[in-house]
């Protein structure tokens, strides 16, 4: 299975709205603290002093989906054909 290497942060929030309704996110240093149903994931949004990016690593999004317990839904919507 091939994924794009990065996913736009706006697309990540869209996917979470669908797969993890009611999730919350807030910024903490170089991370977004994403919480859903008692699970917490620290999603990277910068790189230690380098310019902040609007794109999130796909591997980070996949790991977040496992931690939040919504992997099947999230990975399905990360496919290029999924809109």
């Amino acid at each position: 299975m091939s994924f794009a290497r990065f996913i736009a942060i706006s697309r990540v929030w869209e996917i979470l709205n669908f797969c993890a309704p009611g999730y919350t996110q807030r910024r903490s240093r170089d991370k977004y603290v994403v919480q859903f149903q008692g699970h917490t994931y620290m999603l990277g949004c910068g790189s230690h002093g380098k310019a902040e990016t609007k794109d999130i690593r796909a591997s980070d999004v996949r790991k977040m989906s496992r931690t939040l317990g919504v992997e099947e839904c999230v990975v399905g919507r990360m496919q290029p054909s999924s809109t």
Partner: protein
Amino acid sequence: MNSPDPLFFSHRESVEGNGFVAAISMRGRCLVAREQRDDDAGDAWVFYGVQPCGLSAEGDSLPSAFAEFRESLKDILFGLADDAQNFDQFRLAVEAFFNQADSDTDLWLRRAEEIRSGSGEPVDQTVSSLSQRLLHENKPALSIDLKIANVLADDGNYEPSPSNNVTSGFRVAA
């Protein structure tokens, strides 16, 4: 994630909080996988946290991915210190972060048992060549020690503060 390899990692960090300095020491678990990128940048090494599970990091080599993982971990600990009003709050937040689990725990155990039984060696040669091995029955461990507490600036002393926590970085000299 292709068949990842199970690793233990160690990390020690001093973190300043509101009026305290804490020393954090952990032996955690993670998975490392070599994943194909869809561009011409070559394979990526990806560290996936298992305990703690709430983070991942990526790099062009095993050492660079681990360095990124450690910087991410440091950044998370610093963020938890930002949010804590005192040492007890900080300790509880770090413990909650460290003890959270997800489905990667089962994968980590399965891969470690495969390596033990000989039915599955580490997938990557770089990992396979690591000479130091630790029995997977060893439990993850976390200690959070209060080193300096209740220091007040008006005593003329140094006052610990989360704002003193900074991650490593570099800039172009011009």
